[in-house]
């Protein structure tokens, strides 16, 4: 996939005007696949017989509507939009295209997407089915007062791998804490230093760069990694506020990316009308 085409906003608008677009809140969707599934369900066909081109239009209309309502969309949604546009164009092209050896026929890609949606759909049904099962402690109850002589099952021993590594980490942590010498000063990375450093880096920061790469690396003595990260983030956010940098994060707790803000606003391609 080496061409990321421009969005086909005309098709998207048509789909929207056809009433095919869901009016949706972005809340409640965890990612593009969940949105696609909700859209696909509106086609009311077997997910494996889905019209992918129609789905692509629906999705682009959704993105379009979301942006009109000034939702800030995570990068995942936009990447999916680009990928669907690309897939749609390949599906609509006449066959002759010569495939690169590492390229799959468009119809296989479409079938795979349909399969993924069907699978996610099956899992969401599974969630509903699990929730509907009588659950212990919620719907069904075991004996409230078992006999004093506790009879337990002898054929299982509660020791699992998670417990094992948890026990290991806890001890190593305690071991570390024992060697902690409180008289040693705890160094913090000064915010001013972080500001100066980030400002000096900014001109080179043309690409999205993960925060950990921007923060200085700890070396033996001195501030901890956490302190370097925190001060660099803090300085970065100030610069974002001042319009000098941009920040991106795909979802909560995901890696945070920073880059310098481009000064001149570049001409917009054929974008959505107001």
């Amino acid at each position, binding site marked *: 996939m080496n061409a990321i085409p421009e969005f086909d906003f005309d098709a998207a608008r048509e789909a929207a005007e056809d009433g095919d677009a869901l009016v949706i809140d972005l809340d409640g969707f965890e990612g593009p*696949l969940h949105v696609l599934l909700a859209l696909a369900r509106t086609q009311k066909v077997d997910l494996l017989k889905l019209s992918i081109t129609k789905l692509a239009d629906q999705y682009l209309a959704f993105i379009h509507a979301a942006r009109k309502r000034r939702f800030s969309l995570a990068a995942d949604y936009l990447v999916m939009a680009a990928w669907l546009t690309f897939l749609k164009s390949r599906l609509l092209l006449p066959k002759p295209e010569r495939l690169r050896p590492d390229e799959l026929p468009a119809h296989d890609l479409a079938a795979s997407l349909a399969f993924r949606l069907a699978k996610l759909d099956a899992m969401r049904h599974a969630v509903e089915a699990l929730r509907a099962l009588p659950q212990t402690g919620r719907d069904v109850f075991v004996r409230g007062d078992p006999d004093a002589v506790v009879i337990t099952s002898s054929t299982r021993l509660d020791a699992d791998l998670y417990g094992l590594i948890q026990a290991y980490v806890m001890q190593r942590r305690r071991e570390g804490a024992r060697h902690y010498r409180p008289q040693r000063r705890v160094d913090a990375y000064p915010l001013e230093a972080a500001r100066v450093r980030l400002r000096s880096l900014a001109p080179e920061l043309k690409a999205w760069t993960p925060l950990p790469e921007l923060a200085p690396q700890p070396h033996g003595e001195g501030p901890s990694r956490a302190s370097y990260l925190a001060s660099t983030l803090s300085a970065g956010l100030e610069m974002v506020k001042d319009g000098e940098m941009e920040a991106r994060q*795909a979802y909560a707790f995901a890696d945070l990316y920073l880059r310098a803000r481009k000064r001149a606003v570049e001409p917009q391609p054929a974008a959505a009308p107001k």
Partner: protein
Amino acid sequence: MSDVERMVEALLFAAAEPLSAADLAARLPEGADVGRALAALRGRYDGRGVELECVADRWRFRTAPDLAFLMNEERQETRRLSKAAMETLAIIAYHQPVTRAEVESVRGVGLSRGTLDLLLELGWVRMRGRRRSPGRPVTYGTTDAFLEHFGLASLIDLPGAAEMKAAGLLDMDLPPDFDVPNPAMAPSDEDPLDGDEAPEFQQDFLGEEGR
């Protein structure tokens, strides 16, 4: 009612947790037919206020599901699992052994911190081993506690599992190329022919949002 049946009934009533047929046999007189006693008891308690049930290959008495409304005093306030956690649980249950990457690929989003560890902490999910594939990723599966909580005798009894399997929906094999690109590793490894199209595409959206 046979003696063995009485004994099995008493043991299961007294027990603090489900017992396997082997656990029961170990406490009964030599040669007792545990299987028959369990079948007879199950029939005897059918439709009653308390029923005999098989969970995770072990047996227990429990109240009938339709009487749940009476049990307000016994009901434990359980933390309601988030949608993400429930989906993750379902994917692990139906696909096990399954890797973290596979769970993420089914959902199309990364697992946020706190989802998998919550399930591990609850004791419903466990690490099972490692996949024999490059990188040897750790695989996850469900525990007996999971089956017990949901009242399932075994994994075969997961609702709809047979149908999903028959429809091929539980396969993990996707064509290797089917991969929605990951924005975190965006355009650096792209074909140079297309110049900086991808960054421009980002710029486009940012620009519009900033309007």
